[in-house]
């Protein structure tokens, strides 16, 4: 496998995906969440305890939305396999000087790129209505690691779906359903409290977006607890499992040999 080839495919993926539709999806939608929920709930909710301190709702929401971008990036990148298969480019690329592994790796690089672009933009957007003190170096490290893991997890999740699903309707309704579930069954918009029903808690704790949101948030306020480290570890394990599932399903996709 030649990593330069995957890099080249990543550039292609980004170039054919920087259409207005993708940008709306990647920037406008989360901005709407940020602005509306930030202002509306910001007036209703006072302080939210996080780690060893407490923050206001806007401060709570902003890192959540940055984390949320990993799932959005996953849809865009994982969905590439679906549209490449559906519109013939998968076969076309595999008859060009690329191996299947290089194609797959190209998509993983793409999910990372979109994850960082998306969360980076949302961090800048939230700067506009928050007055943060600078994020510490360790905070930056935490954010980078969790955004990477999150983008990989969701990229692989949607890639796995793209490897399985054939019809347009099935793919679209499945991704919409999943993205809603993943976003709302997480700590992107609200914290888990003692009042959260047990059944929902399970859903929250299975969902890696909960951990990614928590760790990105911890990075923002530069207060890391041991819980955050455990959360990172769980995210890592879930990501490894998801990568394995995606690779297995991808290998079953017909066409292409070496």
């Amino acid at each position, binding site marked *: 496998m030649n990593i330069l080839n995957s890099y080249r495919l990543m550039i292609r993926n980004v170039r054919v995906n920087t259409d207005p539709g993708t940008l709306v999806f990647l920037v406008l939608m989360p901005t709407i969440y940020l602005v509306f929920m930030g202002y509306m709930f910001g007036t209703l909710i006072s302080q939210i305890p996080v780690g060893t301190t407490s923050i206001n709702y806007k401060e709570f929401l902003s890192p959540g939305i940055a984390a949320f971008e990993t799932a959005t990036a996953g849809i865009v990148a994982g969905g590439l396999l679906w549209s490449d298969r559906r519109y013939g480019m998968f076969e*076309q690329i595999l008859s060009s000087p*690329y191996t299947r592994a290089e194609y797959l790796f190209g998509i993983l690089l793409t999910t990372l790129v979109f994850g960082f672009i998306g969360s980076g933009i949302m961090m800048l957007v939230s700067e506009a209505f928050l007055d943060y003190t600078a994020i510490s170096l360790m905070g930056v490290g935490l954010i980078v690691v969790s955004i990477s893991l999150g983008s990989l997890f969701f990229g692989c999740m949607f890639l796995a779906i793209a490897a399985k699903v054939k019809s347009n309707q099935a793919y679209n309704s499945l991704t919409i359903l999943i993205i809603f579930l993943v976003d709302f069954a997480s700590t992107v918009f609200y914290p888990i409290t003692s009042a959260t029903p047990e059944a929902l808690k399970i859903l929250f704790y299975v969902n890696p977006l909960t951990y990614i949101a928590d760790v990105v948030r911890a990075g923002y306020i530069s207060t890391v607890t041991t819980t955050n480290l455990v959360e990172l570890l769980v995210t890592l394990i879930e990501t490894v499992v998801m990568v394995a599932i995606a690779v297995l399903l991808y290998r079953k996709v017909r066409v292409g*040999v070496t």
Partner: protein
Amino acid sequence: MSGVLGLTSFPIEVQDLKYTYDGRKYAVDGISFSVREGEVFGMLGRNGAGKTTTIRILSTLLKRSSGSVRVLGMDPSTAGNRIRKRIGVVLQDESFDFTTVEKALDVYGFIWGVSKSERDKKRESLLNTFELTDVRKKRMWDLSGGQKRRVQVAREFMHDMDLLFLDEPTSGLDPIARRNILNMIKDLTKDGLSVLFTTHNLEEADYLCQRVAIMNNGKILASDTIDALKTGYNGLKTVEVKIGGDQAGAESMFSKVSSGRVEPPFESGLPYRIVTENTQETMQEIIKLAVTESVQIEWLNVRAVSLEDVFISTIAGGA
């Protein structure tokens, strides 16, 4: 085109190739053929004959079930990547990126590692050759079917290659676009490009190909130069007879023709064809029969045997 083929002068060599999709029926059932350097080799055959499957195997997209295959002197099941670097493939199914025509061409050149300046040059000349300049800013999904096909074919010429697979490249193209593409391919073969070509348009195959294989049900029924295939029909001519008005009596009338072999039309409205040695005798016989059977002849025409005649009788004979 680099045209440097290393040791072999047969860019494609296939021996007893078999492929099955489902483990039960062979889609390609023991075919052997070879393509020479600088020639256009045509694969002709009815729908489902196995042409696309063969191209998929040779272009490393499918792994053969058995037989031996050499592409540019290498085995596609082990040297896939080295082969892919030197081939171009225009698949039968449409394929496109969700972007504009000019960007689609550029991105494709990019994934082939073509430099920016070279890409710009190639893109402009291809937009011209394929008459796409008017739609260069249009997005792929806003194009007509034939325009999409043109972009797909043009795109493959963004990079150099030694061997080109064209699976029905002209399907959906208007006659002028079709001619342009055929002439471009002809020119490129002069520089040493070898081409494996499929089409259902036999006039086109006649115009472009040096040699053809006629396939049916996964097997090659005949394979030779077009001239050699036609010499099986040496001295033979085709008399075409178009029946006007009521077609009812036509079948019984043609069953009485004894001076040549009758090929009934695929669908009503097309002429009957009689392959014959003695056109004079056949025409007299038909006119006589038309009078006695009171069948109305709309027109009658004599011409040389075409590749289409060869194709039809080969398929009929092999079925």
